[in-house]
């Protein structure tokens, strides 16, 4: 049920019910009051006649013994005065003897010849005065009064309902406009909703909607870029493989063998990219059960350094972490993160060059700083370093390495940031909180590492 229909029904029914009840109550009351008033008029008339009759001079009484006195008729009212002996002394209507025959005093109803009467009988100084009202006439009067009261009521009720209808329609018009604007949109349109002259109540709604739309749009663009980039990263080695295989099948001897070697290179690259994508997906979708919850910082650093290739003339200067520092992340992942950072520094270092690796315990965390003397990146590229598939210049690798480091850091309450190195180069800072609880240390036997040396120089 629409808001408008519900509002109209609720308010309309309530209004009708309240007005109706009030009207019924009022009319009942009015009915009683009118009846009462008419009865009183009847009684007053009787008393008035009694008052008049009692002041009549004796001659009149003597005359009355011979023939009945006639009282001028009041419209709609009949009256008769009876002597104590029951004789009619005076009357308004001569044809109403049956109706006006005195009975017990007070008000009563009497039906005579199919006509209903309201009777009042009054005893005064031995005289009995009977007054009568035709009920039909009383009812006509009553109906008139009721009508006079009901018509304004009906008018007011109709007016109120009309005002309610118009007011609701008008009041909800901004909502209808919003509904229309939303209905007319293309289901995939993400442009902000723009409706002029919105009431204050709807403005926050539309603002929130627009903010949401803009966020969705950004996410959509990011997603699209990611898909596009992933397609590019996967299709490029695939193209290399396919093309070289086709060349190999058409050539013979050395050329064919060379093409096959190239195709194999493409396969390893594709495998690398796939594995990195899977790693990212795993990091985002929860942990492998096999992963431990924490690791020894020093052994992870050692493993990461040992994994680096030894071909380049790059000197690693390392400030080792304390032997008892534990990080709240699985050993394999800390190694992966460190290795990716080290490989990056290694890759962009001049030949010969040097990379400084520094583990700094600061309060509740461990900051790992890796400084290289490579070309560094521009200011606007600095925040894009950890973006997926972002590569520096002609680039090596899949552009996922730093994205993985960032994902690992985020997954385990750490963070990754980059700054410029002076005079040139890049500083990568990876920070992890330290595991406070010493009980964890018993889980993994401490490995006795030799004196801290750079694994290769």
């Amino acid at each position, binding site marked *: 049920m629409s808001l408008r229909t519900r509002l109209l029904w609720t308010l309309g029914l309530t209004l009708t019910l309240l007005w109706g009840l009030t009207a019924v109550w009022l009319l009942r009351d009015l009915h009683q009051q009118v009846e009462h008033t008419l009865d009183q008029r009847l009684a007053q008339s009787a008393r008035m006649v009694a008052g008049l009759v009692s002041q009549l001079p004796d001659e009149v009484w003597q005359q009355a013994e011979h023939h009945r006195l006639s009282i001028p008729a009041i419209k709609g009212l009949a009256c008769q005065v009876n002597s104590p002996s029951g004789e009619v002394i005076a009357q308004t209507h001569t044809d109403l003897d049956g109706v006006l025959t005195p009975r017990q005093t007070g008000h009563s109803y009497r039906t005579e010849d199919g006509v209903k009467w309201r009777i009042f009988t009054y005893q005064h100084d031995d005289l009995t005065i009977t007054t009568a009202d035709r009920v039909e006439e009383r009812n006509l009067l009553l109906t008139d009064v009721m009508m006079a009261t009901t018509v304004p009521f009906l008018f007011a009720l109709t007016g109120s309902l009309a005002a309610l209808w118009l007011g609701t329609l008008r009041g909800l018009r901004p909502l209808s406009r919003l509904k229309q604007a939303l209905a007319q949109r293309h289901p995939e349109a993400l442009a902000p909703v723009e409706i002029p002259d919105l009431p204050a109540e709807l403005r926050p709604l539309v603002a929130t909607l627009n903010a949401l739309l803009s966020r969705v749009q950004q996410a959509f663009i990011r997603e699209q870029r990611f898909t596009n980039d992933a397609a590019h990263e996967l299709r490029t*080695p695939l193209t290399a493989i396919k093309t070289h295989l086709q*060349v190999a099948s058409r050539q013979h001897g050395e050329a064919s063998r060379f093409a096959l070697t190239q195709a194999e290179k493409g396969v390893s690259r594709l495998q690398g990219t796939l594995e990195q994508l899977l790693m990212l997906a795993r990091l985002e979708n929860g942990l492998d059960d096999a992963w431990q919850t924490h690791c020894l910082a020093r052994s992870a650093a050692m493993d990461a350094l040992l994994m680096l290739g030894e071909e380049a003339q790059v000197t690693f200067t390392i400030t080792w972490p304390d032997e008892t520092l534990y990080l709240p992340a699985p050993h394999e992942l800390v190694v992966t993160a460190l290795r990716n950072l080290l490989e990056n520094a290694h890759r962009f270092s001049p030949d010969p060059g040097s990379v400084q690796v520094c583990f700094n315990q600061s309060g509740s965390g461990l900051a790992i700083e890796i400084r290289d003397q490579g070309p560094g990146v521009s200011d606007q590229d600095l925040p894009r370093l950890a973006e997926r598939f972002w590569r520096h210049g002609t680039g090596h690798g899949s552009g996922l390495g730093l994205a993985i480091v960032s994902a690992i850091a985020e997954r385990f309450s750490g963070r990754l940031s980059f700054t410029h190195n002076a005079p040139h180069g890049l500083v990568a800072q990876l920070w992890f909180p330290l595991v406070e609880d010493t009980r964890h240390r018993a889980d993994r036997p401490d490995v006795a590492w030799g004196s801290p040396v750079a694994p290769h120089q």
Partner: protein
Amino acid sequence: MHVLLIEDDALVASGIQAGLEAHDFVVDLAMSLADGRHAMKVSSCDAVVLDLGLPDGDGMTLVREWRESNLDTPILVLTARDALHDRVAGLQGGADDYLLKPFELDELVARLHALIRRAAGRAHPRITHGPLNFDPLTREITVSGRLVMLQRRETTLLEAFLQSPTALLTTDQLKDRMYGLSDDVESNALNVHIFHLRRKLGKGIIETVRGLGYRLGSPEAVDVSQASSRPKE
């Protein structure tokens, strides 16, 4: 035929280069926008194979640049991005064809031939010159239905003449068609190839215009008797 390949990924580039060379294309490789721009300036080519994602920018900038300077060399765009708007933008930007990676080498070759053929204003893929018949795709040359065996460079040279049957081609233009930028060309190599063509197809197949260059001889000059006795299957 001379193709300029602009592709930044060395592995992909070497594959395409080897593949195209196997189909008798002469390939110049450029690995960035700047290299491509330079290569286009210093030598003429029959077609460009362009990758869109280049390290120093989007390949489409080259397409627009060239089209604005009225360079109408056919351009085939290669890309790994398959979003529709990418494709539409590519073609609207002035590219002539579009191929999604990974692709069949044969398709690339066929499309390049079609592009070059269309650029030369021919509707039919085969080129005929009197009794001589040349299929650019299969590289088959027949004279009166009999196969003529030519070497790779000779075929490329003949193709250059057949593609511009009335034009006067300078020595430099012919060398551009036959050799890549990186090829070491001996000074008399062109003369040697022309000599061989004349020997196999008739003296008048190529006319020398003294001091200016060469042009294709009349169709009557094709020597029917020189063709091998093996009829074309």
